[in-house]
């Protein structure tokens, strides 16, 4: 759903409990956190997506990586996962479902979690994702809007997944580019999350459907201005060609429309639309002190997060939440 519509729909929902550390009213956090005791809190999240690649096993991996990401964005560890499947049995053989679930399982296992069950319904359009439970120390939760002025933002995956998955749907992406895209989509944010805990990081979120701009806007919490260096944002070159051809998902335009008021664009950028591109299984966006940033970046790259880049700086709020320069 478009960001504006969603906040309107859930705005009236309230839930209160002494043990609830992060619930629905706490801005737009990635996952809920419920305190069990002083050492342990339960992190819960759910996410599912329609197919973004043709290979069912890879689709299962992407959907799982996408669902698990919210747990990693909170700085938590994955414990258990439940499969959530909407299966289009009219158009697909049962073997397809088996492959999707195998793909999902592979990613849950990779991060040390276990799949403990699930639920399947018949749907006209395929959906798959996970309901994930994880644990975190209640004092070591990474929220998304607790920035500090002077921090820089590091993004761990390249932008362009919305455009590329749309190009895949259009059957226009060549095999090499499909594999490259799938590699990025299936990459877990676990390593980035683990490295994050070694450094002075003040806030973290993951970049998904609302795009880099939308998730950065949530980080700003309307209390900070985040100044992006557009040229520093890693954009997959394969995606640029398709964006020029108009292979851009509707979600990307929705994001731009919703965020336009909150963004000050210092000069025109030809590929500006990527600032809003709706991502699937995007990277982590983390605010780190300037002092720690160079070493943090080095460590991320050592851990295989090769696209990691410093993309923005946190400033005092100056009227607009986001600046693109």
């Amino acid at each position, binding site marked *: 759903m478009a960001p504006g519509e969603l906040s309107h729909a859930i705005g009236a929902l309230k839930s209160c409990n002494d043990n609830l550390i992060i619930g629905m009213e706490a801005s737009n956090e990635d996952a809920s956190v419920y305190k069990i005791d002083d050492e342990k809190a339960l992190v819960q999240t759910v996410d599912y997506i329609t197919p973004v690649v043709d290979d069912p096993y890879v689709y299962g991996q992407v959907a799982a990586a996408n669902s698990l990401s919210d747990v990693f964005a909170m700085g938590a560890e994955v414990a258990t996962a439940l499969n959530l499947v909407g299966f289009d049995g009219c158009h697909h053989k049962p073997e397809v479902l088996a492959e999707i679930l195998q793909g999902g399982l592979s990613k849950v296992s990779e991060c040390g979690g276990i799949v403990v069950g699930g639920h399947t319904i018949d749907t006209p359009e395929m959906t798959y994702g996970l309901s994930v439970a994880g644990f975190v120390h209640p004092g070591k939760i990474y929220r998304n809007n607790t920035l500090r002025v002077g921090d820089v933002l590091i993004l761990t995956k390249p932008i362009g997944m919305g455009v590329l998955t749309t*190009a895949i749907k259009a059957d226009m992406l060549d095999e090499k580019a499909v594999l490259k895209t799938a590699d990025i989509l299936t990459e877990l944010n676990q390593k980035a999350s683990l490295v994050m805990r070694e450094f002075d990081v003040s806030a973290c979120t993951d970049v998904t459907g609302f795009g880099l701009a939308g998730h950065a806007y949530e980080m700003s919490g309307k209390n900070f201005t985040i100044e992006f260096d557009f040229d520093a944002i890693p954009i997959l070159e394969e995606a640029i060609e398709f964006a020029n051809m*108009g*292979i*851009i998902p*509707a979600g990307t335009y929705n994001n731009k429309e919703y965020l336009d008021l909150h963004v000050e664009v210092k000069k025109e950028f030809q590929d500006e639309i990527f600032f809003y591109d709706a991502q699937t299984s995007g990277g982590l966006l983390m605010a780190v002190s300037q002092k720690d940033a160079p070493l943090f970046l080095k460590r991320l790259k050592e851990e295989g997060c090769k696209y990691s880049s410093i993309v923005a700086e946190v400033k005092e709020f100056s009227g607009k939440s986001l600046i693109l320069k």
Partner: protein
Amino acid sequence: MKIDCCGLACPEPVINTKKSLEILPDDSILEVLVDSNASKENVIRFAKNEGLSVSDEITENGSIKITIVKGFACAIDTQEDNSKFLNKVLFLKDDKVGEGELGSMLIVGFLKSLLELPKLPKTIIFVNKAVLLTTADENSGVMKVLKEIEEKDVEIFSCGICLDFYKVSDKLKVGMIGNAYGTVEALLNSEGTISL
């Protein structure tokens, strides 16, 4: 060509636009109807990226009509080049319009009136008894009119068989002798044929 992409999700409007443009000949116009901002932006992006000229307008029922001109040649210039003529053929089968003396006057009056029009038909074909017009006396009213039409670069063809039949081949004073193939070709390639 018109395509309706209302209700279609990205990237379908772009794909349909792409496919339609591929089959359309150069210098044709494609109209794409969409009903979302995303589809509009994408189709316009696609057209611009292909180097095509594109414009959009909101239709009466609130959908968006995108007009794309295929081909790098400016469509307006092309139209101006041809603007001297209507791509139409005037096909005459008789030396009269209707019967008798009145018919003879009418055909002269009709051809004369053509000269008043801003655009002349590209071709006039004379068959059967109409060849008596293109072979008329030098000083007759009809010949003067036909000469004037010829001066305006209108192609004038008289049927060779018909000229032979009426034994007037040596009296042809305007235009050229046409054959059946050329006649049929001209008729089929024109955007309309007017027969009297």
